[in-house]
């Protein structure tokens, strides 16, 4: 119990002075603190912070008057929420049926080989997160890949590799 109290105090201290927590709090107020708005609140939290770290989940639990286990349970149940920080760039390969039939598995394999990570991982330099989607509903322009939130149509292995290369370039040491 003592532990929990100190963690709440820590979270609130952490939250004070961070503008993003204020925005999140405003969102919670918009939902009148309703506990059934938990998923909406978590969406906002992830949008603001990029990922859901433990203190952030505790903050949401405290403000919605929910047990932390419930918040953690929901955050881990849904694929959309991530508890780990993402890379500077994200590359999401759609693995829906239409994309799969048209060769998205090859596209993913090429991206994995080029970035030297597996789908779902982030590179050691935090530059790139390689992710997969179950279907983004862009089936007529399969295979589709989402680069930093932008859907790109009819992707080939070469196109994905070119994009990954483009992202890598500005980060090269300028010696």
């Amino acid at each position, binding site marked *: 119990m003592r532990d929990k109290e100190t963690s709440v105090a820590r979270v609130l201290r952490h939250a004070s002075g961070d503008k993003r927590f204020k925005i999140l709090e405003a969102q919670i107020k918009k939902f009148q603190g309703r*506990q*059934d*708005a*938990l*998923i*909406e609140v*978590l*969406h906002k939290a992830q949008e603001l912070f990029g990922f859901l770290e433990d203190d952030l989940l505790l903050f949401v639990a405290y403000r919605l008057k929910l047990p932390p286990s*419930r918040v953690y*349970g*929901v955050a881990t*149940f*849904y*694929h*959309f*929420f991530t508890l780990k920080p993402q890379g500077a760039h994200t590359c999401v390969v759609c*693995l*829906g*049926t*239409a*994309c*799969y*039939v*048209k060769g998205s598995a090859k596209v993913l394999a090429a991206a994995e080989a080029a970035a030297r990570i597996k789908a779902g991982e982030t590179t050691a330099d935090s530059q790139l997160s390689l992710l997969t*989607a*179950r*279907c*983004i*509903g*862009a*089936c*007529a*322009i*399969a295979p*589709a890949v989402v680069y930093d939130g*932008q*859907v*790109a*149509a009819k992707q080939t292995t070469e196109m994905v590799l070119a994009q990954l290369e483009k992202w890598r370039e500005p980060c090269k040491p300028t010696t």
Partner: protein
Amino acid sequence: MQADDLAAIAEKHRTSRKQYCLRTCMSAGCVSSRADAIKQGLDAAVKAQGLEAEVEVRRVGCMGFCGLGPLVGLDGRGEKEILFEHVKPEDAPAIVRAAQGQEHGLQVGDPDHPFFAKQMRVVRANGGIIDPERIEDYIAANGYQALHHVLTETRPSEVVEEVTRSGLRGRGGAGFPTGLKWGTVAKSPGAKKYVVCNGDEGDPGAYMDRSILESDPHLVLEGMAVAAYAVGADQGFLYVRAEYPLAISRLQIAIRQAKQLGLLGGGIFETPFNFNVDIRIGAGAFVCGEETALMASVEGRRGTPRPRPPFPAERGLWGCPTLINNVETFANIAPIINRGAGWYAGIGTARSKGTKVFALTGKVQNNGLIEVPMGITLRQIVEEMGGGAIGGAKVKAVQTGGPSGGCIPAEFLDTSVDYESLTKLGSIMGSGGMVVMDETTNMVEIARFYMDFCRDESCGRCIPCRAGTVQMFNLLEKIVTRRATARDIALLEELCDLVKHTSLCGLGQTAPNPVLSTLRFFRNEYLELLQPGPSGGEAAVPPAGPGLAAAN
């Protein structure tokens, strides 16, 4: 807001129309190919050529032929529209020249192509025509007339009766009669009731609901409001996938506009009827398409299903009677009210009425969204509308119903598209995904693909689904990598039977379908991958107990 006000808005909007209209598809597919830059280019070109008084550049929803996008349609030149395909932003000045009747030298589509000609547009009547972000456009297309009619001229029971007579069945896949569901919710006792629209379109390879929500959001809202009146609800929830940000933003705009005009909220059309709609955003869980899991998610909990009965119609959200229908089901309501149940029941087959929207994708020439009358054959869809397989290859199978459906082999292409015929072939109507596969597609790999999906998406609540999908996937993996024997096939079939009959919800109950249907129609492909097993031929069936143990 009264009938006169509605008519005035429609009239004002109609008279303000310009002579020529350039409709720019701004649905997710075309937007990914720079449709926003095209619209800006068109706006700039119209301005540069001083044609603002004659040419309107309109943002519209999905025009259907997504594989040829980005698309721009031109109205006002000749009887038929002129459809520009594969438009690039730099084509904008030439398109504006075309609006003036001048030479343009661009690629133009055939409006009489079977892809369009064989369609029957009821749900998608406004798709690609109206601006989804302007309620006036929807009202000018007879929008909110159905809601006005039911609120001012009919009793709730008459609305239920009308929907029942139309023969409409749920478009989410299972095909439960919509009128029957509405009647059950209407009769359930309770002061508080809810209406929920299931927009958790999770089937990979399907995007009909996304397109409807992006192209004509008010149609769905109107359908929900009519349903709420019929069953006695005053609160609605629209559950949309987080993967569809454009649909979410257009729905938010639509709800705001409808509230401003008094078409949602309190005292709609100056009657005592109140109805509010809130959007609930999903968070990437396929199982949330199942209605009890969806309700858990709307309540902000983990999206795990619970046993039925009690059905949501009796005990749904927060224990109150709840009506849950799919996006396309709600989109059918306003046309049924406006044009009559008799008209609707006249379309389709004896037991499947109306039209169905399909996402025709995969290895087919013409990719896109089609709305066809029930009873059309798969061959007409795939060969005539779809133009057959890409590059003259042979169509091998058509997959319907996603991970809950099955693969229909080419020899059954003459099957009529209706709920019963597709079920007889071991597939289902499903929500509308139709993925065409050609000879290069390995059917065992497809079965493994779907099982991988189900394994990943199983919520873990019940053991048959949680453990069964993993074991079935492992067996399929073993078969694909040529390490399996005939015993493994027998074990796989046994597991399919077990998972199908003992899982808690639809996800587990239908997860074996892709395996069963490929085993039924493409068994040879499985057998070719087998190693000569110790037990000899395929007929050898291992005893159940040790068989299961061996798989673990």
